[in-house]
């Protein structure tokens, strides 16, 4: 992501780089939002304000967060601008090329555009989607079934792990889950596999999904589906095809069966 707004002295660039590295982008958003809404305690506030004073980029980022919140809620200004824009359009004269009675050129241009559009449409339809495109179309993270179930959150680290998972901080999730025993806990193995999948650590992801599917039970299909996703993202169409065929061979009338049939069809094409 392009974060640099203005070039700052070396020391301040280093500070924000360090911040980003440690907290990642979402965490930075979270800190800025907590700062702006006055949720920080005195120590946090002092430390954060010190960072702002020493870091021009962070200062700009905080200002941007503050200002977009105000600007986005200015519905009256947005509407007023549209009214002025309409008044300008209504009072402006017709474009010169239409005044000059050159509408035939406009028709020719429109015809060429339509032809190009049609050719583009045909070429798009003929193009076979790549494994990455298929992955992007079919992958979505598995829903959080843990947060909100108090009995599952006896371990605070688990709550934190799910928070990382839900916010897409998969690296932080992986670092934390290593401290938790997830053996014989297929749901946690599934979430861990998804963290590895999102950080492109395919061997680890495949290992976790294989364990989930081998365990069978209620999450067997999910394990197989995400195994296919990992293989697809890793450009291993052959193995992804095998995994999808196993899902379909169970013959169950489930959501994963329907999705597997549809995806397999696209891979074959």
């Amino acid at each position: 992501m392009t974060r640099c707004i203005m070039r700052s002295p070396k020391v301040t660039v280093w500070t924000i780089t360090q911040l980003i590295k440690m907290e990642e982008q979402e965490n930075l958003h979270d800190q800025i939002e907590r700062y702006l809404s006055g949720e920080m305690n005195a120590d946090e506030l002092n430390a954060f304000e010190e960072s702002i004073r020493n870091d021009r980029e962070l200062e700009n980022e905080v200002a941007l967060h503050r200002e977009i919140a105000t600007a986005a809620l200015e519905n009256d200004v947005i509407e007023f601008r549209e009214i002025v824009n309409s008044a300008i359009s209504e009072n402006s004269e017709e474009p010169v090329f239409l005044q000059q009675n050159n509408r035939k050129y406009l028709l020719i241009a429109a015809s060429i555009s339509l032809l190009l559009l049609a050719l583009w449409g045909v070429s798009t339809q003929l193009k076979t989607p790549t494994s990455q495109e298929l992955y992007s179309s079919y992958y979505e993270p598995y829903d959080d079934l843990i947060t909100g179930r108090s009995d599952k959150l006896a371990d605070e680290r688990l709550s934190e792990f799910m928070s990382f998972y839900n916010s897409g901080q998969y690296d932080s999730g992986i670092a934390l889950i290593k401290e938790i025993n997830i053996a014989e806990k297929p749901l946690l193995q599934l979430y861990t596999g998804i963290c590895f999948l999102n950080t492109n650590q395919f061997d680890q992801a495949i290992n976790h999904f294989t364990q989930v599917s081998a365990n069978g039970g209620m999450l067997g299909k999910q394990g197989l589906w995400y195994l296919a996703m990992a293989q697809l993202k890793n450009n291993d169409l052959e193995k992804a095809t095998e995994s999808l065929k196993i899902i379909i061979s169970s013959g169950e009338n489930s959501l994963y069966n329907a999705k597997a049939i549809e995806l397999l069809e696209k891979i074959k094409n």
Partner: protein
Amino acid sequence: MKDEKDIIGLILKGDSKTISKIYQECFPAIRQMVLTNSGDKEEAKDIFQETMVVLYRKIKNDSLTLNCTLSTYIYSISRNMWLDKLRRKGKFQNVMQFHQENSGPDKNLIDLIHQNETYALYQKHFQRLGEDCKKILCWFFEGKDMKFIAREMNYKSEGYARKRKFKCKDKLIRNIQNDPVYHEITEGNSLDNHTIN
């Protein structure tokens, strides 16, 4: 123009007929000023549009003090706005010449012009977001919590709502920061501190 107090009231209400009349009366002079100072007609229209928004902001904030006719004041906002753009574009020669022929810029007005331009950029990118993102961010900016957003959007968890909010906001910020106008504004404002003061 009729009584200026009435006109100001009608501008605040967003009366399109009044705004059309102002356009017809004021735009020719603004266009002439822009065209003779390195600009084109489209830029002149943009200047008129944002001049009206600045005027609207001043009326809304109750900070409009007229020591001249309303049309002269509108022209004055446009001139300052265009002068500021020229300075940012680095057309110093034009600015010098322009500056010699006119009185110096009003600092308060310049600040309002800057703020308006910055907000216009944010609003343009906000308007371009998907409907769901706009809804989520509006609620978030209004101070609604994730529980409310998750319920209104039919999301299964607050965590998911939080994730969606982050993605929408991150996209908005990236789009703004990648807009060349954003760099023009931020770099131009730091330039102002050296040239105006």
